[in-house]
């Protein structure tokens, strides 16, 4: 059985590599400031023990479509279209190598098109710029002989036209003997290399010079999560996740226009009077969060989340989220959700034409402005006891169960005027 599993893992890895190779060759030009991330492994979430079937291979096929609109493009100095679409298919694998060790993989792409990235070169009539990002993360977890401690390691890579990122992580989690408490610690480091693509008019050697320089960024995260069963119906977790980032933290193709800067007699705000965004090369973030789940009745459960955030850029934020899953039948769940976020502006933010050229740091990126945001949406999950269907894999004789289907829609609106719609789906399969 172990040999069979190892062969399957090997075959799966080879298949993924074979599939990834042609995609990697398709990497396109034109970066965008509004890109989305396909995410890697998520080691940060606390998981109190549940009766999972450790022998099963789990495969999740995730897909999402995201679309946003707004009028504060950072590429154009805080004005201009923020229209963007992103399509992100992802495959998550969780394979038992033996009774104590599991291999996890998260492989996917992001295909995005952005109106604002056309404006890096000021080509006014071109179609929306597009790019593809590829990412792959792998993790290994092992339960020690005491069955209470889990160790994990992981590594990953992501690549797009102007950005290359590697990450490694290590984790440790210990559960109490009665299964009512868990403490987990995860450390993660990202080593990134960034191609310095500046707005066309700021390029040394002329607008057609494509010999960009490069810079780097390192991010270090420590995640501490404590989870606790409070009653038969209530459990909670608290977490702290300090982050230190060093290196290039600004985006070199984002313009900033100044009210008092007009070289060569140009009027401030006209093309040629902007500089590329400049931010400090060190950022320290201090987020802390509380998560609660409550089994109110057999019909309704409540899932709550609160996060406090603070950093040395001067941003302070609060986020509340509430979800109320309604069990329409034992196998069909509807879950409406609502989220509220509010934040103060970074010390270095000012909108279009509000910065002085004497400022040491400057940005007109509205992601760093003061705003509040509301998100509302609805999702459903259909998970029949015996699955939605069973079939044989094309290669091999293993029976695969189509276990569940999750579909979710969210509408997001910021006080800056930015709106977004996102639809996501998860098709979950298991192989005994």
């Amino acid at each position, binding site marked *: 059985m172990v040999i069979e599993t190892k062969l399957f893992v090997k075959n799966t890895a080879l298949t993924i590599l074979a599939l990834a190779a042609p995609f990697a060759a398709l990497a396109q030009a034109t970066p965008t400031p509004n890109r989305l991330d396909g995410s890697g492994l998520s080691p940060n979430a606390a*998981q109190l023990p*549940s009766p999972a079937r450790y022998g099963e291979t789990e495969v999740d096929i995730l897909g999402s479509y995201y679309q946003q609109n707004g009028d504060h493009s950072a590429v154009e100095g805080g004005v201009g279209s923020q229209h963007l679409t992103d399509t992100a298919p992802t495959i998550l694998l969780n394979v038992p190598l033996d009774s104590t060790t599991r291999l996890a993989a998260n492989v996917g792409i992001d295909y995005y098109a952005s109106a604002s990235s056309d404006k890096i070169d000021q080509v006014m009539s071109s179609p929306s710029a597009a790019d593809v990002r590829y990412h792959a993360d792998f993790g290994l977890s092992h339960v020690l002989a005491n069955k209470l401690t889990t160790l994990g390691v992981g590594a990953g890579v992501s690549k797009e036209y102007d950005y290359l990122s590697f990450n490694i992580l290590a984790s440790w989690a210990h559960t109490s003997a009665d299964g009512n408490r868990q403490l987990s610690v995860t450390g993660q480091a990202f080593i990134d290399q960034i191609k310095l693509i500046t707005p066309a008019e700021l390029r040394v050697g002329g607008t057609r010079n494509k010999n960009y320089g490069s810079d780097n960024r390192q991010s270090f995260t420590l995640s501490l999560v404590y989870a606790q069963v409070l009653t*038969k119906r209530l459990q909670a977790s608290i977490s702290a996740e300090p982050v230190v980032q060093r290196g290039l933290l600004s985006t070199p193709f984002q313009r900033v226009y100044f009210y008092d800067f007009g070289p060569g007699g140009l009027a401030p705000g006209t093309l040629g009077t902007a500089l590329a965004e400049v931010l400090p090369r060190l950022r320290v973030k201090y987020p*802390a969060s509380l998560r609660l789940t409550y089994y109110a009745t057999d019909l309704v459960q409540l899932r709550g989340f609160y*996060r406090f955030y603070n950093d040395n850029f001067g941003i302070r934020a609060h986020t509340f989220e509430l979800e109320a899953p309604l069990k329409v039948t034992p196998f069909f769940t509807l879950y409406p959700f609502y989220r509220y976020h509010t934040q103060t502006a970074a010390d270095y933010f000012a909108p279009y034409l509000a910065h002085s050229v004497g400022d040491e740091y400057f940005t007109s990126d509205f992601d760093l402005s003061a705003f509040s945001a509301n998100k509302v949406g609805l999702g459903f999950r259909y998970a029949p006891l015996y699955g939605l269907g069973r079939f044989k894999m094309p290669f091999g004789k293993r029976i695969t169960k189509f276990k569940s289907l*999750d579909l979710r829609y969210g509408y997001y609106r910021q006080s800056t005027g930015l709106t977004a719609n996102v639809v*996501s789906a998860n098709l979950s399969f298991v192989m005994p």
Partner: protein
Amino acid sequence: MTNTPFFRSVALGLLLAAGLALPGCVSVAAYQKAYLNDEDMKLATKKVEAPEVNFESYREGGAGANGGKVGGGCGCN
């Protein structure tokens, strides 16, 4: 207005309440965990929620501590 003393008080209150409540909770035996083992009781974001967590982490300067990415892989910060 986006960051009032009210929010600060709520934040501190919640964290304090959690700190006080967690050590004082009851012990629940494995056979009493039918409700806690429900799929919707997991103390984590759902897999299908990942795309939303990602876009929020890029569109909002104040993000983190929610299982989303906090660095790397993207030219945004």
